[in-house]
């Protein structure tokens, strides 16, 4: 009987200290099993929401996750608008799309940087995050803050995009696209990355459907779903754009999907700015009537889903929040079994887990003997890239 050892995988951000996220059961170099226990980040948001007013709930859900900072508010206000049949002015719909797509750009670029760090391409990490700054600047100019935008309200948006901002946004987008072209070449044409990421952590289409995977994780496995097209909201049915899918289902396919989605996002923002109609940005609804409402939006990681039940008072009776990583995370168990330990961090990073949306993970096992810590695992991943590079003569 071969020796089974247990390896903890640490936190998502290499610089965070949170032990006991995952413990993989390994047999030699191969991962044999993985278990799940989360709770380090559980803040009881659904219960807090029941004691706040509807307006306050939007600020709370914004802080579910820092990266999907406009996805949860959009979903929440859409659930309330669905509940009460509240109409939103056209200009507000376009502004919502613009904010959503800007968030998608900053999130995918952030992911690209972190994935680069995990596999040892630290330059990609530094440059990816540096070239993400124009997007944060646009956000600060338009919304007033780099991260928590506070742009959404029931029936519209809180702030308008001024005329003088439009040319500023377009200039910074041009700058962003140039850098994106450069990073795309670096990442997609690199033979070492092909060798490192292709065939790693494959999620088949059938499994993606059975786990109800979402977002780029599902689209990289050939599942053609995107809330922006299937359940249209904001201004997505008024502009032309493509849903990016790949069929391989491995980490490389997920990278390709995210990079190409960034180009689509730039296109959507340009079209929205071009067609931005004049008019009100807020329909000023007064009451939320009793009833139930469901909201959906496509966050950078997949579909966000909120269900709100109201009894006519000013607070929700029930506010159910479901973030995309909640459905994507269980696929990690399927994709990492049978792979080597040095690939575990990049396979996990490929689903772009948003811990705060999901809560952290602890994988408990029978024995608790620690073999490696998180820094070790990241270093193993980086070492593997180095050895592939050397074997290819670079």
């Amino acid at each position, binding site marked *: 009987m071969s020796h089974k050892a247990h390896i903890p995988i640490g936190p998502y*951000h290499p*610089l965070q200290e949170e032990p006991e996220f995952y413990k993989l059961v390994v047999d030699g170099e191969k991962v044999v099993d993985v278990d799940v226990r989360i709770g380090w980040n559980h*803040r*009881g948001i659904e*219960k807090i929401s029941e004691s706040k007013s509807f307006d306050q709930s939007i600020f709370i859900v914004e*802080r579910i*996750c*820092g990266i999907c900072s406009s996805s949860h508010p959009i979903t929440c206000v859409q659930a309330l608008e669905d509940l009460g049949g509240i109409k939103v002015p056209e200009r507000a719909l376009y502004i919502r799309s613009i904010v959503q797509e800007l968030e998608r750009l900053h999130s995918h670029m952030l992911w690209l940087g972190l994935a680069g760090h995990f596999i040892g391409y630290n330059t990609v*990490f530094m440059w990816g995050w540096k070239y993400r700054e124009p997007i944060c600047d646009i956000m600060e100019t338009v919304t007033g803050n780099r*991260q928590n935008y506070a742009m959404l309200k029931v029936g519209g948006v809180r702030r308008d995009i001024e005329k003088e901002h439009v040319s500023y946004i377009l200039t910074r987008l041009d700058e962003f696209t140039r850098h994106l072209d450069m990073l795309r070449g670096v990442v997609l044409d690199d033979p070492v990355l092909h060798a490192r990421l292709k065939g790693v952590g494959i999620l088949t289409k059938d499994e993606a459907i059975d786990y109800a995977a979402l977002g780029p994780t599902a689209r990289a496995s050939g599942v053609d779903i995107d809330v922006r097209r299937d359940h249209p909201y904001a201004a997505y049915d008024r502009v032309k754009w493509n849903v990016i899918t790949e069929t391989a289902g491995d980490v490389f396919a997920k990278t390709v999907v995210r990079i190409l989605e960034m180009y689509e996002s730039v296109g959507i923002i340009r079209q929205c700015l071009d067609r931005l109609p004049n008019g009100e940005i807020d329909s000023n609804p007064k009451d939320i009537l009793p009833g139930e409402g469901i909201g959906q939006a496509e966050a950078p990681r997949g579909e966000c889903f909120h269900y709100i039940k109201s009894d006519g008072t000013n607070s929700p009776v029930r506010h159910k929040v479901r973030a995309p990583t909640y459905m994507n995370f269980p696929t990690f168990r399927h994709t990492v079994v049978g792979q080597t330990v040095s690939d575990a961090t990049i396979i996990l990073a490929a689903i772009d887990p948003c811990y705060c949306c999901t809560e952290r993970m602890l994988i408990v096992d029978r024995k608790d003997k620690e073999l490696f810590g998180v820094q070790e695992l990241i270093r193993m991943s980086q070492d593997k890239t180095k050895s592939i590079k050397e074997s290819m003569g670079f």
Partner: protein
Amino acid sequence: MGFREKILTRSLYVFHVSSGSCNNCDIELLDCLTPRYDLERFGIVLVGSVKHADALLCTGSTNRMCVPRIKLLYEQMPKPGFVIAWGACGSSRGLFKDSYNTGAPLDEIIPVDLYIPGCPPKPEAVIGGIKKLVEKINTTR
């Protein structure tokens, strides 16, 4: 402040712990290390182990599961050391003070030397905050 504290301010080794945050503050912290803000030019470096740290940087709203760990990390940090409470959640648990899964505020668990409020604090606020900490240490007898 003694001689040892003053020496530390020349190059602060920081250990980051998150006790249940929305990751916004953590992203802004990583942002401080990237080329635009580049905290490393001030000698501030993020370390992988608390035993090498001069300062403990805490984000997050003190989740119940994390409270014993924060205490342990503070005890393991070699003294003299500083504690920086980062963000609204680090300072006072922010929006999450009424949650069933949130413990006491950070400054009731470990002594805090610097509060950097904000949700999240901008990198400029962070640089300003660290500068204030350095001044406080250097001017206190």
